[in-house]
């Protein structure tokens, strides 16, 4: 099974505490989340032999809660991809449709859950990397509010955008993992206590929120996130929204004009942050080191040529370009304007609606190899997920149904730290 889909890079066992809320639960962990003593490759030749000397906070919290880690899952190299094909360890296959991609970049985590090789999994979501593979593999994925879950021990790609989040077969199981991993961490200064940052009391009992009750819920449906989506995806998502209405919700059409520019803004910001974050890989303290003569610049350049794959090089170079003299104002500054605009658009929308519904992905799962030679096509597929990261908001992808035998995900976005609301709404869609 494990070999069939290439879901794992490393199979290993890290035992959890004897009891706790997740006792007896097996967890697959994305391979950019540090596990003490267990290789953590980020899907890259650069870190093929890297063994972290400490574990990420989320890993400690899972094992303290009784969970057993069963392995490190395949991923797009350093999280850079939408298909899990840029991994140095080969592509992962979609268990629902093995000739298709599982989505990315946390494709191994979603595939492991969909194939029953782990009860639940952790992914990381910088621009959709938990929600996309959840949608493509027909499982549930949660991208938490920025600051809800500690990133300590997560190998950074774009710090201002990313969060670790759970992937599970059901909303309730994903919420139960979130209950364990959420909460402030002294080792991550960007973590927040939800009740210290919101006006009212927000529920942080996530598993209890999966009660299937959509009574009185107002669902905003933004036209911009349906325009241009595959018709089969739109029909399936609209049917899932009808299920929400049948469960007591009301819908209202809304407009989020800023999201038309979200994907470009996301890529400029993510690539810029990546160009800085990945500067640490020079072969001196850890990671691959090229046999190279010459001075340190030549040595670093040779190490990075050998260690990084094409997509990682592309993003480092484009990020370097976007930040370089003469281009900063044209790209990076405009992208930050777009980010602020997206955040304001969502804030205004949440004055009248409780959650915002859309397709998670505007397309059905790609065939293996289909998008590899066309990076721009792959980037544009992130149009619906990236606005959420720019706005730091919580979102969930829940199975909406199938089109042509392929899974379709419904994305539900909520106000900051209102994970409980999106979990409740998603649980009302599930099993309908």
């Amino acid at each position, binding site marked *: 099974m494990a070999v069939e889909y290439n879901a794992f890079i490393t199979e290993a066992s890290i035992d959890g505490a004897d009891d706790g809320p997740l006792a007896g639960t097996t967890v697959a962990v994305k391979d950019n989340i540090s596990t003490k003593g267990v290789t953590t490759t980020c899907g890259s030749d650069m870190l093929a032999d890297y063994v972290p000397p400490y574990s990420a906070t989320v890993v400690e919290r899972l094992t303290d809660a009784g969970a057993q880690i069963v392995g490190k899952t395949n991923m797009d190299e350093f999280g850079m991809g939408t298909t899990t094909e840029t991994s140095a360890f080969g592509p992962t296959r979609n268990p629902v449709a093995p000739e298709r991609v599982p989505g990315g970049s946390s494709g191994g985590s979603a595939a492991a859950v969909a194939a029953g090789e782990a009860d639940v999994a952790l992914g990381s979501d910088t621009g959709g990397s938990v929600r996309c593979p959840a949608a493509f593999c027909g499982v549930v994925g949660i991208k938490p509010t920025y600051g809800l879950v500690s990133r300590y021990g997560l190998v950074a790609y774009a710090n201002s955008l990313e969060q670790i989040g759970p992937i599970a077969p059901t909303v309730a199981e994903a919420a139960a993992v979130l209950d364990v991993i959420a909460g402030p961490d002294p080792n991550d200064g960007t973590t927040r206590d939800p009740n210290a940052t919101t006006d009212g009391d927000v529920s942080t009992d996530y598993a209890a929120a999966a009660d299937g009750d959509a009574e009185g819920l107002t669902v905003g449906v933004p036209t911009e996130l349906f325009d241009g989506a595959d018709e089969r995806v739109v029909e399936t998502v609209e049917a899932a929204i009808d299920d929400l209405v049948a469960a007591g919700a009301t819908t209202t059409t809304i407009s989020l004009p800023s999201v038309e*520019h979200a994907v*470009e803004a996301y890529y400029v910001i993510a690539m810029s942050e990546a160009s800085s974050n990945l500067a640490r890989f020079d072969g*001196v303290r850890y990671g691959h080191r090229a046999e190279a003569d010459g001075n340190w610049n030549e040595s670093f350049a040779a190490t990075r040529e050998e260690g990084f794959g094409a997509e990682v*090089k592309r993003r480092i170079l484009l990020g*370097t370009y976007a930040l370089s003299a003469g281009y900063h104002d044209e790209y990076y500054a405009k992208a930050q304007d777009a980010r602020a605009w997206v955040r304001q658009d969502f804030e205004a929308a949440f004055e009248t609606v409780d959650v915002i519904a859309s397709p998670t992905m505007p397309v059905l799962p790609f065939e293996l190899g289909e998008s590899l030679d066309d990076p*721009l096509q792959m980037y*544009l597929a992130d149009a619906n997920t990236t606005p959420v990261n720019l706005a730091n908001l919580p979102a969930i992808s829940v199975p909406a149904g199938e089109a042509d035998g392929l899974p379709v995900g419904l994305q539900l976005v909520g106000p900051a730290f209102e994970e409980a609301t999106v979990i409740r709404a998603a649980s009302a869609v599930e099993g309908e």
Partner: protein
Amino acid sequence: MTETSDDPDDTSDDGSVVDPAEVEHVAELARVRLDEDERELFAEQFAEILDAFAALDEVPETDREEPLVNVMRPDEVDESLSQSAALANAEETEDGFFVGPKVS
């Protein structure tokens, strides 16, 4: 890549700047060695990608007031990695130090 632009001043400003030499310049800044095929492929792809990014021009100037607060804590001595654990992943070490490539 500038077919949508009517302004001749615009055409000199995008597309044409992404030639293999420009890619090589950025690659040098980023300390990533590229082979010739990669330089040419990237020049082509970057032109297309940067053309898509140019849509950011339509974004209005936006007030970017962020609700940011400093997160402070007392400076306390805590456990840290042992020297051997910190050096364990390095390719080359000497007397408890990392060994890097020569400076020049």
